[in-house]
């Protein structure tokens, strides 16, 4: 079976190289038959890699521990779900997973019927297949998942218990899916440059591809944060670690791209910028994998490192960047804007500002992440920057981005008149002021930054709601539909626009959760005898008893806690600690009581022979809003992605109306 897997990879490599060559020659010499053949080769690569994944899965399920990869990442005792996840849990498997997902996306890309951009497909297919070739070379020469051990161990090493959590089951495939997904928009951008078709075609084609990748990356990041919060037991969800930054940066540039592409489609401006953004997003995606796998930066996440693998990734990034930037340079004269920015007070301006801020944030994060390397090169000492750096830079930037999400909905394209502005901003503005006063009175004044941030968040929600009500009201007057039906009709008639609004609401809710949990969290550590309690804010946490037992491979400690509030019983909590003797691994299961107002988060720290136990109790306000906002963000993305059932309406004319996108 391992031989079969290896041969499949070799054949896939040949097919991928052939496909790229066939596409290029077929396109250049105008031979449709050759292009068709390249297309078939893409399908062949997809089929071969699917078989390859099936072969690895078969080996995993049959516990073939002679395969090094399987011995390293699975074991007999692993439940089925985590056996499945060992497909992508390790380096070799994740590269195979990457190559496989890319081949599926490439197959969809070449099979899709399209009215626009069909001429772009051959070169885009070639770029995709060259990327595929890179990963197949990695699989064959550096990260072969089918490599055999010289002996067959009786059992595998298994999956780290910390990774045995639903969050960790979904986090890697979605993250990888997001990274991989940006290959297709990148390929179309390069294709547009190569074939000198620099109009809107490629943007029309890539909009939904970019959205899919963006949605997957969002889901991947959210699962990662959620896993860290419920499983790692430090009460946080994001720590500005290099690898976390690496998955956040392409998300930022992709978000910027999703906005700036609307500028080109509506006004014919920012053409160069769009290409730069998608190239950057793709390069940052590869960089993410590189950082995870190369160990060049000291991250808590960098896994088994291999210098060869690292330098190959770096080489690929260099080729990608310099290749596409050179093409861009060649085509520069053809990428002139068709219009000018007219006024500082216009929707274009808000989009431009949003783009500058998102890219500025990306740049600052990139700088901070690589600072140890930069400072060593410049001054000979490694200096690293911690979370305060990232918070200082990004806090104000993201506050401005959130605020823009509200402002942009109220400003028309091209040039907004003063009267118009006054009319649109009146009610949301008043509501924002009222909210600020209310929060001030409620005691948020202790923390002016939070007061400012919450007010901005409220203002954005008001603007979006008022905008929806205004449009629904118009529909109500014209069509006689009731407000609810009118709103629903609006949303379904223009999914990209209202999907975008939904994403904005999701972002706002997330911002509320982040600000709340960062600004107002309270921590207390206490060592308690059974029967004693500790009070944190309004909560009284009583340590009732504990339970300890030993099973074959682990010992389990469970504490029984009662939580009450002013003599009022609230809930029981049972935080646990496992200790796996064979691997010396401790796993802490925190206990969380989550409400809309706040999370009560209890970490069992340690126990003593005299029966006392130490706990760390954290009150984390508004964390639930973060997860809810994340869910809404993803849903909004799906709404924006959802195809219109009717035949696609003709694209809106430039610089008219404002019924597409946000």
């Amino acid at each position, binding site marked *: 079976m391992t031989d079969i897997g290896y041969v499949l990879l070799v054949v896939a490599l040949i097919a991928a190289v052939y496909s790229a060559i066939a596409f290029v020659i077929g396109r250049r010499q105008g031979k449709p038959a050759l292009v068709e053949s390249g297309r078939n080769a893409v399908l062949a690569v997809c089929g071969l890699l699917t078989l390859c994944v099936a072969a690895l899965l078969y080996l995993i399920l049959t516990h073939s521990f002679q395969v090094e990869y399987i011995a390293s990442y699975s074991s007999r005792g692993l439940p089925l779900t985590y056996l499945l996840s060992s497909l992508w849990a390790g380096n070799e498997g994740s590269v195979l997973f990457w190559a496989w997902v890319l081949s599926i996306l490439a197959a969809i890309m070449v099979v899709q019927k399209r009215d626009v951009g069909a001429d772009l497909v051959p070169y885009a297919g070639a770029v995709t297949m060259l990327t595929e070739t890179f990963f197949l070379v990695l699989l064959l020469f550096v990260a072969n998942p089918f490599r055999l051990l010289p002996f067959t161990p009786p059992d595998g090493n298994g999956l780290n218990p910390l990774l045995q959590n639903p969050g960790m089951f979904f986090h890697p495939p979605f993250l990888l899916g997001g990274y991989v997904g940006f290959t297709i928009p990148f390929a179309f951008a390069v294709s547009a440059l190569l074939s000198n078709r620099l109009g*809107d075609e490629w943007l029309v084609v890539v909009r939904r591809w970019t959205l899919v990748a963006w949605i997957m990356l969002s889901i991947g990041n959210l699962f990662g944060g959620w896993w860290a919060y419920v499983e790692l037991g430090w009460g946080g969800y994001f720590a500005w670690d290099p690898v976390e930054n690496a998955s956040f940066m392409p998300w930022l540039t992709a978000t910027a791209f999703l906005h700036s592409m609307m500028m080109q489609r509506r006004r*014919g401006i920012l053409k160069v910028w769009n290409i730069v953004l998608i190239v950057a997003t793709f390069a940052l995606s590869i960089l993410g994998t590189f950082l995870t796998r190369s160990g060049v930066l000291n991250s808590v996440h960098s896994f088994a490192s291999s210098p060869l693998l690292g330098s190959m990734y770096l080489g690929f990034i260099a080729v990608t960047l310099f290749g596409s930037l050179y093409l861009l340079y060649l085509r520069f004269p053809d990428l002139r804007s068709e219009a000018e920015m007219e006024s500082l007070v216009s929707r274009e301006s808000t989009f431009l500002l949003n783009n500058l801020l998102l890219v500025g944030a990306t740049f600052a994060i990139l700088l901070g992440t690589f600072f140890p390397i930069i400072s060593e090169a410049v001054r000979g000492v490694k200096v*690293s920057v911690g979370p305060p750096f990232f918070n200082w830079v990004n806090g104000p930037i993201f506050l401005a981005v959130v605020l823009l999400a509200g402002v942009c909905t109220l400003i028309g394209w091209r040039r907004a008149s003063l009267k118009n502005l006054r009319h649109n901003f009146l009610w949301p503005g008043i509501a924002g002021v009222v909210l600020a006063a209310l929060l001030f009175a409620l005691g948020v004044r202790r923390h002016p930054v939070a007061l400012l941030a919450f007010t901005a968040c409220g203002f954005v929600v008001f603007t979006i709601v008022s905008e929806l009500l205004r449009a629904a009201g118009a529909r109500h007057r014209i069509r006689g539909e009731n407000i609810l039906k009118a709103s629903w009709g609006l949303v379904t008639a223009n999914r990209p626009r209202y999907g975008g609004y939904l994403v904005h609401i999701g972002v706002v809710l997330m911002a509320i959760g982040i600000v709340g949990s960062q600004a107002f969290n309270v921590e207390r550590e206490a060592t308690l005898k059974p029967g004693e309690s500790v009070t944190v804010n309004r909560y009284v946490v009583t340590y009732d008893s504990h339970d300890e037992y030993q099973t074959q491979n682990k010992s389990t400690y469970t504490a029984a806690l009662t939580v009450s509030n002013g003599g009022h019983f609230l809930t029981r909590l049972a935080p646990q600690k496992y200790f796996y003797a064979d691997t010396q691994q401790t796993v802490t299961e925190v206990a969380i009581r989550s409400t809309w107002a706040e999370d009560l988060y209890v970490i069992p720290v*340690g126990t*003593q022979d005299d029966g006392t136990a130490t706990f760390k109790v954290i009150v984390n306000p508004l964390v639930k809003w973060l997860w809810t906002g994340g869910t809404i963000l993803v849903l909004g993305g799906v709404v924006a992605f959802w195809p219109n059932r009717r035949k696609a309406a003709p694209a809106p004319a430039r610089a008219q109306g404002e019924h597409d996108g946000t």
Partner: protein
Amino acid sequence: MKSDLRQTPGYCRPALGVDLLKKKKFIIGGAVLLLAIGFLAYRGFAGSAAYYYTVGELLSQGNALSGKVLRVNGQVLAGSVEQKPGNLDLKFTVTQSGQNLPVTYRGVVPDTFKPGGDIVVEGSLAPDGTFVAKTLMPKCPSKYLPVG
């Protein structure tokens, strides 16, 4: 197909002077923005920069570093971990190519902390040569590694 602004009747490119004037506003705006981001980055940097050393590099610097915020990279020496029952104090040794640095830490120990595992500790050097860690950042392993 879409109507192109250039093909719209009556459209003409604005005169060059107007062009420049408009561009200027946006360029100034962008520059102000970049400066603001730069300022924030500088403030954040001043507040959180930490020298990053391996154990060997740190020890060769002697007392020159006492009081500074440092990050030190090495492995947790197997058998060196001491935790007194009843409190949150932890003592262990970070080692790297045979050189050892004693570390004290108070607080919750992350699950990923393991004897033999890679770790970065953040904190500062006490006058007696022990490292007082404020944060433990053990590496998050993707798989089981046998304990050395």
